[in-house]
């Protein structure tokens, strides 16, 4: 399919005589990044920081313009991408585990993950389970054992809605530990992780489920004891003291990744360009600096494997949500 547009790019590439002119696709002009939230949120950060680094690395011709499109937890942006932007190969949309969770639970009516192109992830925030410093639980196994005796023994507080990612992390861990009767586990939903953590520190709720980036403040002050991080390996830097769930014999991993999807019906060349761009970005020093200063942890499925990862995550969340009766 050679459209007038493609010809224009070829012409533009030929004219500018860039080193990479051998490549069939190269973005020209304005590149847009939709952050499906109001300014200030995680998706907004993903768009803006990735946009900056893409510019620094000359992977985009000019600037990346961030557009905020809030609504329905990303649903408005997803619907916009599916229905109005098909074939637009200069559009990135920020996504995360929150996006896959909603897709898995059919919260974007009439839409599914196959309607867009999944490009890549550029890092993640890992799930943790923590308790207040005077809690009787000292490791994840003690906590899970109590739950095995009585699934209502430990009450969890988290920053997502019921059935949202913070809730699911508890269920993933409990399932891996062999706790039965998952729907009985009490989960109290708060507006954000900070609010939930305050309730745990205050002794009103037993345990906190959230992401490592949310917990750092109270971890450093010693008010919060993190029992486990839900990552494959221990986290780098100061966080290497925290044991993983895996090393405690509970095979539970919960990355809240940050990445992008693009509209459907784009050329393979264009898709490959953006997949490669994410690889280059992820491996660049500039991006490593951004990750470090913003507490973003390593997470980057190999080129081309991201799509499969997304599908698998959606399937896992779907079956887990069915198990707890959240969806039919």
């Amino acid at each position: 399919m050679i459209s007038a547009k493609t010809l224009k790019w070829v012409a533009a590439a030929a004219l500018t005589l860039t080193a990479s002119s051998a490549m069939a696709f190269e973005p020209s002009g304005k590149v847009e990044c939709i952050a499906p939230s109001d300014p200030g949120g995680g998706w907004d950060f993903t768009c803006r920081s990735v946009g900056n680094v893409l510019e620094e690395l000359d992977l985009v011709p000019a600037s990346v313009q961030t557009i905020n499109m809030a609504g329905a937890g990303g649903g408005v942006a997803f619907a916009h991408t599916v229905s109005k932007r098909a074939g637009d190969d200069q559009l990135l949309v920020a996504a995360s585990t929150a996006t896959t969770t909603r897709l898995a639970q059919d919260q974007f009516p009439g839409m599914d993950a196959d309607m867009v192109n999944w490009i890549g992830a550029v890092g993640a925030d890992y799930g943790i389970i923590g308790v207040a410093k005077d809690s009787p639980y000292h490791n994840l196994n003690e906590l899970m054992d109590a739950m095995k005796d009585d699934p209502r023994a430990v009450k969890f507080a988290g920053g997502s809605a019921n059935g949202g990612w913070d809730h699911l992390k508890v269920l993933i861990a409990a399932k891996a530990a062999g706790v039965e009767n998952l729907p009985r586990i009490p989960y109290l939903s708060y507006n954000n992780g900070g609010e939930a953590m305050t309730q745990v520190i205050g002794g009103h709720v037993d345990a906190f489920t959230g992401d490592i980036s949310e917990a750092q403040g109270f971890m450093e002050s010693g008010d919060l004891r993190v029992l486990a991080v839900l990552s494959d390996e221990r986290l780098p830097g100061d966080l290497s003291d925290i044991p993983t769930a895996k090393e405690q014999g509970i095979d539970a991993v919960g990355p809240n990744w940050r990445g992008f999807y693009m509209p459907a019906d784009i050329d393979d060349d264009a898709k490959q360009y953006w997949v490669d761009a994410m690889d280059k970005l992820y491996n660049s020093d500039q991006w490593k600096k951004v990750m470090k200063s913003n507490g973003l942890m390593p997470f980057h499925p190999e080129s081309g494997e991201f799509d499969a990862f997304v599908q698998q995550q959606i399937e896992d969340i779907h079956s887990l949500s069915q198990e707890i009766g959240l969806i039919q």
Partner: protein
Amino acid sequence: METLHYLALGFGVALQPENLMFALMGCFIGTLIGALPGLGPANGVAILIPLAFTLGLKPETALIMLTAVYAGAMYGGRISSILLNIPGDEPAMMTCLDGYPMARNGKAAEALAISAIASFMGSLIATVGLILLAPLLARFALTFGPAEYFALFVLAFATLGGITGKNPMKTLMAAAIGLIIATVGIDLSTGTQRYTFGVLELYEGVDFIIAIVGLFAVSELLFFIEEKAGKGREMIKVNPLKLKWREILSIFPTSIRGGVLGFIAGVLPGAGASLGSFITYTLEKKIVGQKGYFGEGDPRGVAAPESGNNGASSGALVPMLTLGVPGSGTTAVLLAMLVSLNITPGPLMFTQNAELVWGVIAALLVGNFILLLLNIPLVGVFVKILSVPPMYLLPIVTMVAFVGIYSISHSTFDLDFMIAFGVAGYILRKLEIPLVPVILGLLLGPEMEKNLRHAMQISDGDWSILWSSPLSIGLWLVAIIGLVLPVIVGPILRRRMQAAKEKVG
């Protein structure tokens, strides 16, 4: 010591050139909004929220600007009270009593200067109170579990009408409307959608900002169109200022008393700035007694309510910042701003968003000095603007509101929604149903529901958890008092305020 450390950090934020510029801008716009009759501080802040988003301001900068607007509006309210005998906003009503007579006696400049100094002192005292009290209260907030929070929200609703509120039924209705709107969107505790009818835009519930701007700003425009109030108003000419040090010193005791009392009135939920200015004026009259000539242009009668309402406005920030329960309509709007920025008020905010909280507090102090400077030498500018016919001002206001809302989400749905809220606000105001309870219902409803359900989950369905701690019992008692007291004291207070108003004529 820790407080001083944080305050230093706050000054570091507040004194950044960008923040300082927006504080200055906020002070100026705020004074203007306060001075214009009809546009109260809640409206003013509501209109400027979308502007803050449009400019892509950092959270602390946005909040600094809006608190400056808030503080400025409290200063500005007095200008039209003194010159026109029309309060620019409700709390400035008491300033008419002695301010207008002073102006008529050819002392308009002195009245304006004295009220600016009193406003400054009231605000300063209350800001110091805020600095001392807020961190203490924030730490105390850790002891609040779901049951305590639920009782606190009940208290907020019980005292909503305020002690001076006239029609409790209408207040209740307004709060109920807010609560009903609040149920739209995802139910956090079960993850199901409520009243969204498959409309994606409704999945996250009704955006506070859109509701607020629609209810306040758009309805204001509709009212204006209806009244066709095109002309400016006749006002008293301002004489050259001749103020002696002795005169300034003579209002110091009044201003200090007013500031302290106003602060206390502000901290109490439901009381707010109107009560602050009312009780300080009444108290001052009692203290000075026969020696004064209150009602005929006594400078102390100008200083008392001004220090009172400025004190109360800073005081109202205490419960808003520490517990997330606004003490007045304007702080409710500020709270909506915080929520939109995904910042939760409470103990965590004081540590995790220390730069923001203390930046705002420091900016309040800085803003106070700016306001004093703005309001004494530059008072003439505001007086000039006051004579600009509203037919030029309101379209600008509306434009800012529309552009602002659109720039947040780039969605025409939001604009339509805002207009719908504007029409609803117009109808409600026609029916004399107050708008602030609607906003509070919308803001606090989800929180109240959430905490009740959490309490039930923790206790496994045992209702007695709601009154199982001394703290929650105390809160319930205050709530009951808050409900009963207005029925007894309300008519008396209202009669007195009415009498005072009639005296001015």
